[in-house]
C-alpha cells in the first residue's frame, strides 16, 4: 500500500497508522498528525486504518513569529 507522507510517497506493509508512526518518527520531539487534512488526535492513533493513496501530514515544532 502506498500513501503520501508530507507529500512524499511511502510504501507501507500494513494499513495501521501506528505502524507508520513507528517506522517514521524518531526522537522525542512532539508531533501531530492529520490524514487527508483531518486532524487525528493522539488518542485515536490505534484505531486509524489508512487507505491506499491517503495523504498523511506529520508536523513538528518549528520557529515562528
Amino acid at each position, binding site marked *: 500500500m502506498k500513501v503520501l507522507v*508530507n507529500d512524499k510517497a511511502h510504501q507501507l506493509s500494513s494499513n495501521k497508522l501506528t505502524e507508520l508512526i513507528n517506522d517514521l518518527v524518531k526522537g522525542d*520531539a*512532539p508531533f501531530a498528525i*492529520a490524514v487527508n487534512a483531518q486532524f487525528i488526535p*493522539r488518542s485515536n492513533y490505534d484505531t486509524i486504518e489508512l487507505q491506499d493513496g491517503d495523504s498523511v501530514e506529520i*508536523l*513538528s*515544532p*518549528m520557529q515562528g*513569529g
Partner: protein
Amino acid sequence: MWTLADKTIKSRLLIGTALYPSPQIMVDAINASGAEVLTVSLRRQNPEQGGGQEFWNYLKELNLNILPNTAGCHSVKEAVTTAQMARELFNTNWLKLEVIGDDYNLQPDPFALLEASKELIAQGFEVFPYCTDDLVLCEKLVEAGCRILMPWGAPIGTGRGLTDPYALKVLRARMPKDITMIVDAGIGSPSHAVQALEMGYDGVLLNTAVAKAADPIVMARAFKHALEAGRLGYEAGVMPEKDLAAPSTPTLGTPFWHQNK
C-alpha cells in the same frame, strides 16, 4: 504584573522564535528580552531525522509560555486543522490565529478570521487573533468571544511601526477595558513599542525587529526597557498636547535686562 488570558506575567513583550542568526542567539536574545511568551509554529519536517527535535530542546530549555501560530493558513479549514494540531503538539489552548487574505502584504482575511475565531472558541481555544486595526472587525471578534485582540501596526516584517496611530488610538479607546490589546506585527524599533504602550496597548508581539537587528541580544534588551518605559508613561498619564508654547521657567522675577527689551 499583568494578566494575559489565564496567566499572570511580568513582561509585556511577546517574542517570536524565527529568523535569528543562530539558535543560541535566539535563546540569548529571548532571555535578554525578559519575554515570557514565545510564538512558535509547526511544519512538515523529516520525522525520520528527528525533525523539530533541536528546536524542541531549546523550547524546553527556555521553559516559557508557548503561543503557537497558524502562519501560512489561507482558509478557515486550514487554520482550524492547524490549530487542532498545534494544541496537541504544544499542549496549550493558546493560539495566535492567522488567516492570511493577501500574500503581498500578508494582510489578514477579516471574514475568515472571524469565522475561524468562532469555531475555535467553540472548541475551547484561547484565540489571539492577528487582525487589522479595523474597529468593526475588532468589535465582531470581541462579540465572538475573543478576550485578546492583536491588531497590526504595519504588515509583518516591514518594521514600519504604527502606520495608522489614529486608528490604533481609536481602537483602544473603543474596546472594553477588559479586552487585552497587543500590537502585533510591523514593530521595527523600540520607540514603536513605546508608542503602542503609551496609547494604552497592553503589550507588543514582535520577531523581526529583534532577530534581524545588527545585535539581536542588545536589541532585545532595548525592547525590554522600551516596554517598561511605555507602560510607565501610560500609567503616569502623558500631558495633553498644545498648539501654543508656554514657558516652563517662571516669568516672575525675570532680570531687568530682559524686561527692557
